[in-house]
């Protein structure tokens, strides 16, 4: 496997990109997604793979500086097996080759020569200009000029003006193994960027979209909202606090002397290359009008129940119904499993009428590792959920 250089995405792909694959990073115009390709190039070189980088739109020096500005560090090429074909090479080809056929032949010769000299394992191609010069099929066929033992992995970035129609051609006509579409949700301006795993040939996978942010020169998949809800006193605030790197709770002291959440819990965590924001709801029914608002745009939900309080399941069932209406990934955190006399999984599943696909995790919300495991499972669920 070849890593994309983005851990969260590697996990979604089952470990990375199988060698010999053909990969497309499709960019919507104006969307800041160049770091996808850059991250994969950095990772390939870090792993000492022999690379050919084709840059018909820029010079090698400009590319290296741009990449360094985006990534925060210079691409280490010293002692590495890396070759480039850049804008200057393209201009030379244009000058020396009077026809398209002649230019194609010249491109082929250059790619073949560099691949042979360097035993190239991965070709990175910025494809826009090749597409414009030669069309889809002939442009991609140029990359097949690389014969150096096993077929190289081909990874291209393309500025996609043609939308899904072009993606279908990459998948169906050109048999690409991985197609990642990088887009933005535009209001007046792009208010969040997201990537979609449109197609993966080596693993059955639902088409999946995940927002991302760029932080410290890295693509960080971002789950902007996971809602944590459940009956009163089930341990939601403890769950959010245990999970979070930062956060807070808006509570007041109840008649019993215990604190109860009266607005929301809020937590933020960075975990396994994901940025995740948690919203905890109050548990009491009088706050129910808040819950649809908190569920709006949520990507997943955790229902926290107290395994020692079977009476709470009625309330939990009501909350599950509210969430189910919105068709989002849901997991059950069966809390206080460290106390005796708790319900069994069968009792919980039966009472809550859970489908087999809804996981139930027995945890203590006080234990950070338990809570993180629930979230890990939910993130997996979110990235593979069939809406």
């Amino acid at each position: 496997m070849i890593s994309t250089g983005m851990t969260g995405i590697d996990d979604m792909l089952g470990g990375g990109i199988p060698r010999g694959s053909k990969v497309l990073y499709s960019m919507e115009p104006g969307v800041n997604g160049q770091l996808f390709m850059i991250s994969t190039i950095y990772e390939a070189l870090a792993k000492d793979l022999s690379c050919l980088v084709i840059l018909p739109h820029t010079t090698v020096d400009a590319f290296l500086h741009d990449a360094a500005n985006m990534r925060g560090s210079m691409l280490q090429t010293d002692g590495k097996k890396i070759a480039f074909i850049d804008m200057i090479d393209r201009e030379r080809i244009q000058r020396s080759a009077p026809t398209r056929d002649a230019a194609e032949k010249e491109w082929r010769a250059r790619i073949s020569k560099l691949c042979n000299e360097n035993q190239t394992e991965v070709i990175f191609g910025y494809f826009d200009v090749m597409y414009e010069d030669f069309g889809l099929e002939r442009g991609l066929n140029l990359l097949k000029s690389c014969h150096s033992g096993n077929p190289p992995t081909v990874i291209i970035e393309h500025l996609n003006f043609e939308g899904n129609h072009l993606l279908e051609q990459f998948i169906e006509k050109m048999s690409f193994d991985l197609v990642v579409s990088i887009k933005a949700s535009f209001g007046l301006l792009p208010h969040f960027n997201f990537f979609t795993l449109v197609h993966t040939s080596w693993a059955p996978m639902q088409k999946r979209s995940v927002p991302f942010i760029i932080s410290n020169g890295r693509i960080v998949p971002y789950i902007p909202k996971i809602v944590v809800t459940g009956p009163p006193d089930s341990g939601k605030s403890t769950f959010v606090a245990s999970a979070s790197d930062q956060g807070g709770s808006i509570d007041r002291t109840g008649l019993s002397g215990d604190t109860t959440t009266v607005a929301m819990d809020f937590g933020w965590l960075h975990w396994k290359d994901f940025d995740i924001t948690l919203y905890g709801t109050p548990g009491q029914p009088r706050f129910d009008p808040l819950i649809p608002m908190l569920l709006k745009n949520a990507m997943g939900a955790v229902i926290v129940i107290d395994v020692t309080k079977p009476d709470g399941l009625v309330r939990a069932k009501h909350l599950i119904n509210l969430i189910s209406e919105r068709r989002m990934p849901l997991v059950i955190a069966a809390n206080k499993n460290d106390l005796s006399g708790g319900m069994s999984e069968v009792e919980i599943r039966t009472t809550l009428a859970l489908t087999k696909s809804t996981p139930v995790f027995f945890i203590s919300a006080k234990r950070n590792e338990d809570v993180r495991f629930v979230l890990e499972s939910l993130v997996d669920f979110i990235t593979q959920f069939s809406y």
Partner: protein
Amino acid sequence: MYIYKTGIAQIDGVSGGIEAGTNILMLAPSMSSAEQLAYALIKPVQGEYSIVLSTNERAAEVVDFFKSAGCDKRFIGVIDAITKSSTPSIADTTRLMFVSSPTDLTGIGIKFSNMIESTFEGTFADGETGLFPPPIRFCVNSISTLLMYRKLEVLYQFLHILTAKQKKIEGFAIYLLNNESFDDRTLSLIKQLMNGVIEVKMDGTDNYFRVLGIKGTKADWQKYTVNKGQVMIVP
């Protein structure tokens, strides 16, 4: 709706100015002073921002024009597609951004989005803020150069997106194109994306312009000069 003043009585006097969301193609022969006219029209007034995509001049030269026209440079942004090819290490700032060549439409699109975003976020002008939502004037100088690097079909798609975004953010944009160097098909295709056209012609050393397609304006040729960013109509 926001109205962009042009400083030209023949336009402002009739309709008050240019309506927000307008894209104008400026067709001009080489050696004319169309570039100065375009820059004069997109010069920001108080509270506005201006962004220039320059494929012909370095960012510093573009900024100099606006400074000489009395503009506050903190409200001027330039996407420079010239300098980076000779100075690869040059780094972007909030208002001066660089792409390696006019070929790089990916880079141009991203830098444009970044600049627009910073005007909305209030980080564009070193703590100074203009109006909100930000009125943005934009100039592409020039489509002619872009067409030397990319095919018409690709550039059409690119401009289609760019003009649509201008409309969405309610900007006012001018796109310069040398009408002597391109055939009728090219001109008519690019015109399809525009709300109006300003034609520039030369007679000897004199420059003339006329406005076509902008509501209420007459299509008469006007002799003009540009001095320190001010358009003067010569009677």
